[in-house]
């Protein structure tokens, strides 16, 4: 969990405008503000823009997101004038299923009209997937969560290949990485299919393939750069001292 938060933080460039969701994305964005991207701008869909978080929020509308923010309006303003207008550099996403093209399902397992399991739904996830310049997906790496094709595309990734987004009418964007409990997947330049870019210390590429429901190219995989002591210290002491999200993962 700590490793995933660190990997998420490292994806953020200094000065970038970041759309963060609840949980690990918040940990990653907050950590980035303390480490590699002190000038990154954190935007929450519920309305707060450029928060300087002092306490970890438990909701993207949490009063904690108001801390020293530049502006605080609401969903309509942030989604239309920040996201749809093209100002979000990187959006963080998660979901119940992620497929070979980085499409995300946050809606249901089985038929949409008669679902076997229902999930909460898109929220802002579909919007962030459609209109961020790039997206980072965070997920627990299990075979059932990584099928060849998701049951329902809540949040489009590359859809079905390099032309999928363009054909659908999406103006820009697409997933650039999937940070999992086992490693980091990236998308092939030519095919836009996910491949294993790195595996976390203690994990083998073979294990990553076994826990993936589609054929995963592992030929390019290297070991993930482990977190530094400084990153872990900030994460534990400044970002999540209450161990709200860090603890949850251990349970």
């Amino acid at each position, binding site marked *: 969990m700590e490793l995933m938060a660190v990997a998420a933080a490292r994806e953020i460039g200094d000065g970038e405008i970041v759309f963060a969701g*609840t949980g690990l994305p918040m940990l990653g964005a907050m950590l980035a503000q303390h480490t590699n991207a002190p000038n990154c701008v954190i935007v929450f*869909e*519920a*309305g*707060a823009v450029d928060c300087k978080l*002092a*306490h970890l929020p*438990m*909701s*993207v*509308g*949490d*009063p*904690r*997101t*108001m*801390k020293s923010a530049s502006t*605080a*309006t*609401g*969903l*309509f303003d942030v*989604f*239309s004038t920040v*996201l*749809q207008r093209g100002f979000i550099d990187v959006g963080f996403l998660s979901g119940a299923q992620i497929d070979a093209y980085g499409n995300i399902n946050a*809606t*249901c397992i089985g038929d*949409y009209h*008669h*679902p*076997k*399991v*229902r*999930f*909460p*739904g*898109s*929220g*802002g996830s*579909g*919007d962030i997937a*459609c*209109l961020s310049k790039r997206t980072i997906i965070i997920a627990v790496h299990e075979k059932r969560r990584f099928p060849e094709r998701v049951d*329902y*595309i*809540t*949040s*489009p990734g590359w859809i079905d290949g390099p032309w*999928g*987004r363009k054909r*659908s*009418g*999406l*103006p820009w964007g697409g997933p650039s990485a999937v940070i999992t409990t086992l490693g980091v997947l990236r998308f092939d330049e030519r095919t836009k299919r996910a491949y294993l870019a790195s595996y976390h210390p203690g994990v083998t590429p073979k294990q990553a393939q076994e826990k993936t429901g589609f054929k995963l190219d592992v030929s390019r995989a290297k070991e993930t750069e482990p977190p530094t002591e400084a990153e872990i210290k900030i994460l534990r002491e400044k970002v999540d001292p*209450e*161990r*709200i*999200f860090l*603890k949850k993962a251990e349970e």
Partner: protein
Amino acid sequence: MASEIENKIMSLREAVELVPSGAHISLGGFTTQRHPMAFVHELIRQKKRNLHFYGHSPGGDLDMLIGAGCVKRVELAYEADEAFSRIGPRFRRAVEKGSIEWEDYSNFGMVQRFAAGAMGIPFIPTRTMLGSDIVEKEGFNKKTRSDPKIASKKLAIINCPFTGDKIVLLPAIQTDVTIIHAQVVDAQGTVRIYGQNFGDEQQAKCAKKLIVTCEEIVEPEELREYPEHNLIPFFRVNAIVKVPYGAHPYACYRYYDYDPEFLHMYHNEAKNDGTFLEFLNDYILGVSDWEEYLKKIGGDRKLRTLKADRKLGYAPRLKRR
């Protein structure tokens, strides 16, 4: 208009009587923030049925209404208390059993629909949701779509008449009644919200009837000293109800925080039909009003722990796990 002299201040019971069964409603707030919960409890106590609910990211407000059998249909983007629950347990149950009808949009999609209704235009163009199954799959059946109060289809994708690019058109929403919970309202109805307003502005302004529950009612002069900080003009508001702590267990910026202990308890109880019914009887049906409910959840002692720090607007020492 005589709105200025009209007395809009009323009791919760009277305000809830303004919502008939079968009404198309929307509630303010966002996941774990500022839902009009006292109003929700009274809707349940007055046994409203067949409500058509529009939301972007509701939480336990909608979950409790569904569990109590008040809801027939939902159009929304999300239903959960975020970090407190992966999904609203009663919503999940109702969808998996097929006991309600549902239509999915994204959060941006839903707030645009409220905005279109607030502007008095029939639809709104957007670039979001393209490429997703949200635009491919329609939840409501033909019979539901033939109801004149419901848009004849979920959405339309057209080529922009100016650029030729693909664009999604979303039908406007105008609710029969929207209910929001604000921090401060004046006696005429001018509304001030502190912190993010979420989708409250669009949800409120698209309504045919607007009910505002609030922490405080003040003199109009006080809010009119800084009109630029006010969100809704008085003439749009039909009813005002003062209900301190009226959003509990959810946060109300600058007043109180969410109640983690209660939320963990709710999500535990709401997982099963039997324990949910116990929750419903213990905390809603079995109490006569909001004051009694506040005593039941721990009274002043509990509320003191939730009280917001004046500078931060939340309770920094709150135990959240």
